[in-house]
């Protein structure tokens, strides 16, 4: 074997590895669905307060978060049945988002119903968790812009902790749209074009 053959062999290895890693493509659909559900929850909670509608035990949140979990569990099951390979990155991300989801559900429901966390501080607490999840996701994807989204989540959390009130519903809704739904749409478009190639 000579230098040229060795170079060719290394190039071949790189090409196969790159092609195989494409087995894992984040389609952003989960970001979009969860983002929309949270925005609906925030807006309905805001309207309940403004129009003084009695919302026993946050029924709107129970329904919306229930739909979200159902979507995630069914989606994960379908994905498992369909996929032919699993990357380590995929496993890490699955774990990060599952644990973040559980943490947010505990903070949102247990935190507020137990009275340990005042309702107005649920959004900033959730923003802190989302910041962690986006930070790790960005590193795993190798996409700096996703890592940078965490800065937005953490800055928003600081703002909402220091400036509690009705505006929190709007701030959190805007953050959800620009820091989760829009990135989800971008990832969805990227995944579509990658799969087409």
């Amino acid at each position, binding site marked *: *074997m*000579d*230098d*040229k053959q*060795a*170079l060719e*062999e*290394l190039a*071949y*290895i790189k090409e*196969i*590895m*790159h*092609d*195989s*890693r494409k*087995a*894992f493509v984040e389609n952003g659909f989960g970001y979009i669905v969860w983002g929309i559900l949270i925005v609906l929850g925030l807006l309905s909670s805001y309207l309940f307060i403004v129009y003084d509608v009695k919302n026993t035990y946050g029924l709107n949140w129970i329904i919306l978060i229930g739909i979200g979990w159902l979507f995630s569990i069914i989606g994960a099951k379908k994905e498992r*049945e369909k996929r*032919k*390979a*699993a*990357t*380590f990155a*995929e*496993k890490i991300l699955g774990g990060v988002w599952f644990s973040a989801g559980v943490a947010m559900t505990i903070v949102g429901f247990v935190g507020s119903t137990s009275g340990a966390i005042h309702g107005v501080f649920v959004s900033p607490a959730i923003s802190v968790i989302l910041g962690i999840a986006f930070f790790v996701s960005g590193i795993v994807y190798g996409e700096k812009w996703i890592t940078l989204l965490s800065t937005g989540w953490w800055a928003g959390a600081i703002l909402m902790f220091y400036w509690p009130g009705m505006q929190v519903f709007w701030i959190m809704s805007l953050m959800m749209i620009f820091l989760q739904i829009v990135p989800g749409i971008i990832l969805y478009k990227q995944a579509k074009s990658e799969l087409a190639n």
Partner: protein
Amino acid sequence: MKDFDYHQLNDIIHSRIRLAIMSVLVAVDEAEFNFLKEKVKTTDGNLSVHLRKLEDAGYVSVKKSFAGRKPVSTYKLTSKGRKAFEAYVENLEKLIKGK
């Protein structure tokens, strides 16, 4: 361009198909037989033979399960296999650098 003592290269990995299998399994954590077939671009029989050789060398492990009624074989690189692959790539790099 000087010749390299190819005996320094691991014989088990030094085959186009087995090298491709190892490269796929380094990139993904685990892969089903059909995924490997698609990436390596070979026939069922040929792939089976090469996978068996890698299994016998202790470079890959296989987990057999069922998806409904369909049997599914999932392959994974062992730590011995990963080390062997790294050493193989290192030897190729040495050759290029002329050491």
